[in-house]
């Protein structure tokens, strides 16, 4: 077994290495931003907008659900574009860029002409206004497509 003083010395050297490498990584990452394996891990560092937006499906009863809760879509327009929201107020503000894109991938893979077991629904761009008060934030929906959808089997 290593004797005490030797172990303490090694710990001291490891301590110098740890702090020197940590400071160097921090400084280098601040410089390059993100270049593997250096990262400033700056995701979501910007101040958020006061509105949040998300694509959802709203059924005939008015209940909202995720697009991924359905596995069949027959819509007008036939291939809805989830990022075409210029007609919606306040435009495309408040969303995370990759979220509608990932939902678009899912939607495009599940467009079908098989109408069996489908129900009426709307694909909407829902926007919440975030205020500094307790309670549910106010929201408004902007229709992107009118569809018949088939709920995914549980």
């Amino acid at each position, binding site marked *: 077994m290593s004797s005490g003083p030797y172990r303490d010395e090694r710990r001291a050297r*490891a301590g110098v*290495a740890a702090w*020197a490498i*940590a400071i160097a990584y921090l400084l280098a990452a601040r410089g390059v931003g993100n270049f593997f*394996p250096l990262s400033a891990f700056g995701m979501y560092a910007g101040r958020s907008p006061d509105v949040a937006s998300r694509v959802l499906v709203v059924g005939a009863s008015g209940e909202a659900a995720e697009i991924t809760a359905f596995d069949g879509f027959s819509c007008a327009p036939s291939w809805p574009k989830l990022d075409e929201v210029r007609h919606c107020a306040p435009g495309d503000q408040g969303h995370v860029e990759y979220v509608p894109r990932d939902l678009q991938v899912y939607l495009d893979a599940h467009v079908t002409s098989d109408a069996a077991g489908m129900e009426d629904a709307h694909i909407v761009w829902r926007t919440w206004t975030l205020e500094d008060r307790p309670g549910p934030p106010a929201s408004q929906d902007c229709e992107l497509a009118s569809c018949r959808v088939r709920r995914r089997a549980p």
Partner: protein
Amino acid sequence: MSLVYRSPYDGHSRTPLRVGLAVIAGVVFLDAAFEVASMAKDPHFAPRAPGLLRFLPNTPALAWVLFGLVAVGLIFLAFDRFVITAGAWAIGWMAVLSQWRTELFGTPSRNCFFPGAMLFGWVLGLVWARVVAGRDALTPEGRPLRESLAEAGAMACIAAGYVGSALSKLFVSGFGWVNPSQIRWLVLSQEPLASFPWLLAYRRALIESPDLARLSAFATLVIEGGSFVLLFGARWRLAWTAAIWVLHLHILLLCTMPYLEPMSLLLLFAVPWPRLFRRPRIEDPLLARRPELGQPTMPDVIWILLCVMIVLAWIAPVGFRAG
């Protein structure tokens, strides 16, 4: 403040750390290769500003070739063979795969950066040992010394990653990042609904309470910014690992953003597994034979190496700077 780095692996073999790091990095990059191969054949992910892809064919097969090259390096590292070269080799090919993914997806995968940063720190620690102890560092006799420095380097990089994340928020938004909208915006724009009633109630509680949202943002900054205590000592490291776990579980439940990579890596490095499993203690014959190796100094070569890395990082025209 003492610079002494205490580890639950002091006096024990660090083979579980080396193998665990290689396995976790391998699994993460297997997933990355799968993702890149899928995106390469999907027109939804056409690169908007190709850099690397001006030189590489955007074909799924290449992602698997790159993963194979990464795996070779990680296997050599796990078996403790040609460790510095193997680690650098793996990091190099990981960088190519990571850059390709960034060009296809639009943003870098930070999930890949956590094992990458720790592997980078591990290799820097090995280089440090090589500089200090010469060829002796790379012999079986030098394993305890070189892997104690490698562990310190790996922990240094993940600690720097978390502190860097807090600093990024403060540099971009200042203390204004702690506001009632920040976390509510993240939840609503990512996952406003939930399949389980308890999860929906949890998300709603935060969405409907600006004070809770403000407190969550504040706690995020404190936990990330305070992560330098991961370098203080074994008990601090364990306590802060628990805090980081709470943060990641919170993010997972609220936004469905799993950061399983740093969670598993911190679990591996911070929990006193050798004591829990009563592992036998080992000698450090190299330090016993050459006690001068314990001197807590920084060799000139390391100074130069780290300074060159910092300067290159600031002047090189690479890197993704958006959030």
